């Protein structure tokens, strides 16, 4: 995998060029945000729910080893095989071995961000296993060979016509279909025989209950329940941070999850797995993949509270106008920008800059992660580690010097005003001025505030800053 920093700005610029896609993407995500708000306003206890969710998650993370052991003990008692994976490679090997032991060649799966993290599909393909995504959005992305662009709605950057083209190639449907109902029906018809003949099913897990050894899967299409109940072998891949201590805690989280994500009160299916079905076998793979290290990062460990609702993405003006794929990472949007650098600091060094720091992400987060503050803190870390582009670094360096010296600063401001008014465009808009891309420089003013102040106010008063010098 390339280690080069993701050029988010360039990818976003490309996304901005396509007006119909941009407009739909922006409006669709904002609509999800508004539906979330409507749900929030119905519930007077909304802020209390967020506070409880945050406290339960922070408590659980501080006692994660104990709760993981408790889950493992209870799950094993109920007949679940529990596996542990340090990283993606180990996870893939474990899944490969389970499938091989059952001579399973056809795996159907529901959406799981952890399997994306582990890049599991190509690994299993090499082992001769056919992996079929059964979630509609995820299947569209699999057929188009793209990462999911959103953690809840993976193909939200596509229009009906894009899906029609993809399905025409693989499902032999009419490429000119413009009715989403017909395309969803085509997916149902194509998936059924695959589901009925699958050797194994795979799901993720939204919540894990230590007290009972249960894991919970929240979905809408019914594909996860089909994947888990039709084949007799069920493998669930789950991040180790997904624990909650008690069954009763689920009440808080289930009430928040879908309301925050899509603005629906609950997902159509909320499924609780506590043991294998009659005649079946059940495996849970607990995946670390950087999480235990993240828990030790003083400024960033609370990002592990995330329940993957996507509300921060829906509300983010940068995400809505750049698309998930522009982040070049498994996790996009504000939450992606604060967890991706823990996977690869250099490659994802540009992502914490894909934000206006407006704080909207923090305000909508159901588990109260201080996302915008972490974005800011990541910028500081990246500067200290020199993971900053040359031009940005030099501009910041010069700005720092200037702002520390009032006389030089004022001279520079005057110079700038003169330059803005008189310089030709090619001098003002070029690679040394990334701010001027897609934006006009501010209009020059005839008089700076400082000049105006000297002239109109404070006669006889000395400039405090200069006296202090």
């Amino acid at each position, binding site marked *: 995998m390339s280690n080069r920093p993701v050029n988010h700005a360039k990818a976003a610029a490309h996304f901005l060029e396509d007006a119909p896609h941009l407009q739909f993407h922006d409006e*669709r995500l904002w609509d999800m945000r508004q539906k979330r708000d409507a749900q929030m306003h119905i519930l007077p206890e909304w802020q209390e729910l967020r506070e409880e969710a945050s406290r339960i998650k922070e408590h659980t993370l501080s006692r994660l080893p104990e709760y993981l052991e408790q889950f493992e003990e209870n799950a094993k008692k109920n007949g679940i095989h529990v596996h542990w994976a340090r990283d993606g490679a180990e996870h893939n090997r474990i899944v490969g071995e389970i499938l091989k032991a059952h001579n399973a060649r056809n795996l159907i799966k529901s959406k799981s961000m952890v399997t994306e993290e582990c890049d599991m599909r190509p690994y299993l393909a090499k082992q001769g296993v056919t992996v079929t995504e059964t979630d509609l959005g995820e299947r569209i992305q699999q057929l188009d060979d793209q990462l999911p662009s959103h953690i809840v709605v993976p193909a939200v950057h596509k229009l*009906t016509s894009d899906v029609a083209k993809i399905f025409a190639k693989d499902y032999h449907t009419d490429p000119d279909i413009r009715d989403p109902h017909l395309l*969803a029906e085509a*997916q149902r018809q194509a998936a059924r025989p695959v589901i009925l003949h699958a050797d194994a099913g795979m799901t993720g897990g939204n919540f894990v209950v230590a007290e009972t050894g249960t894991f919970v899967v929240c979905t809408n*299409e*019914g594909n996860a329940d089909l994947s888990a*109940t039709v084949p007799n072998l069920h493998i669930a891949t789950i991040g180790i941070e997904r624990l909650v201590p008690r069954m009763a805690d689920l009440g808080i989280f289930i009430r928040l999850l879908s309301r925050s994500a899509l603005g629906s*009160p609950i*997902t159509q299916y909320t499924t609780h797995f506590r043991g294998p079905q009659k005649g079946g076998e059940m495996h849970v793979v607990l995946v670390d993949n950087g999480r235990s290290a993240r828990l*030790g990062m003083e400024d960033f460990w609370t990002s592990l509270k995330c329940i993957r609702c996507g509300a921060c993405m829906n509300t983010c003006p940068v995400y809505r106008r750049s698309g998930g794929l522009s982040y070049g990472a498994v996790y996009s949007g504000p939450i992606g920008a604060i967890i991706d650098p823990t996977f690869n600091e250099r490659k994802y060094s540009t992502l914490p800059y894909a934000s206006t720091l407006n704080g909207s992400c923090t305000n909508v987060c159901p588990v109260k992660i201080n996302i915008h503050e972490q974005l800011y803190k990541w910028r500081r870390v990246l500067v200290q580690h020199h993971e900053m582009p040359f031009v940005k670094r030099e501009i910041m360096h010069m700005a720092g010097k200037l702002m520390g010296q009032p006389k030089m600063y004022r001279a520079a401001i005057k110079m700038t005003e003169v330059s803005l008014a008189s310089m030709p465009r090619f001098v003002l808009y070029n690679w040394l001025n990334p701010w001027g891309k897609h934006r006009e420089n501010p209009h020059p003013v005839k008089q700076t505030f400082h000049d105006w102040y000297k002239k109109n106010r404070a006669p006889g008063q000395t400039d405090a800053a200069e006296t202090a010098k």
Partner: protein
Amino acid sequence: MSARDEILQALRNNRPTPENHPLPPVATLGDLDASRERFITSLKILGGDVLEPVEGETLDEAILRRHPDAKVICSNVPEARGTLPVERIKTPQDAATIDVTVVRAAFGIAEMGSIFLSEAQLPINSFAHLGQHIVVVLSADAITANMHTAYQKQPEFRSANYGVLMSGPSATADIQGVLIRGAQGVRTLSVWFT
């Protein structure tokens, strides 16, 4: 060291101070109305509907009225006979031919219009998902108020190996944001009160 021990050790080394993060007591928040009316309002928001009996009608007759084209009706409840004896469903795949599945829910949740099914209510778990439509028999006495009361009071969450809360039929909005009821699981979900 095994992966398990290595991960647990890393978590022990890296975790924030546990004393600073006590476990909050179990919370019961929000509306505690457990009425059938609230259940029905919530069910309709999620795309489900109520099968209202016309005077003197049996459940079998009501199902045929709701699904006139149904050929294979398979019932796991004594209130309906159906057309296919449920004993014929032996493997998970056997349920694929069913047009209308009839089950009894263990309980319902008024806040969400959800109904709960587990292996205790199903001949085989896929029975709830492979049929085209589902009719759910629910006792109006078996409705709990909201998610808090459900998880605190319903013993089924602690006894079932497989327990699904279905809130309306399957749905998707993955193509250009258009909401489609009837995605990959059941196309419709109707509740018959007893």
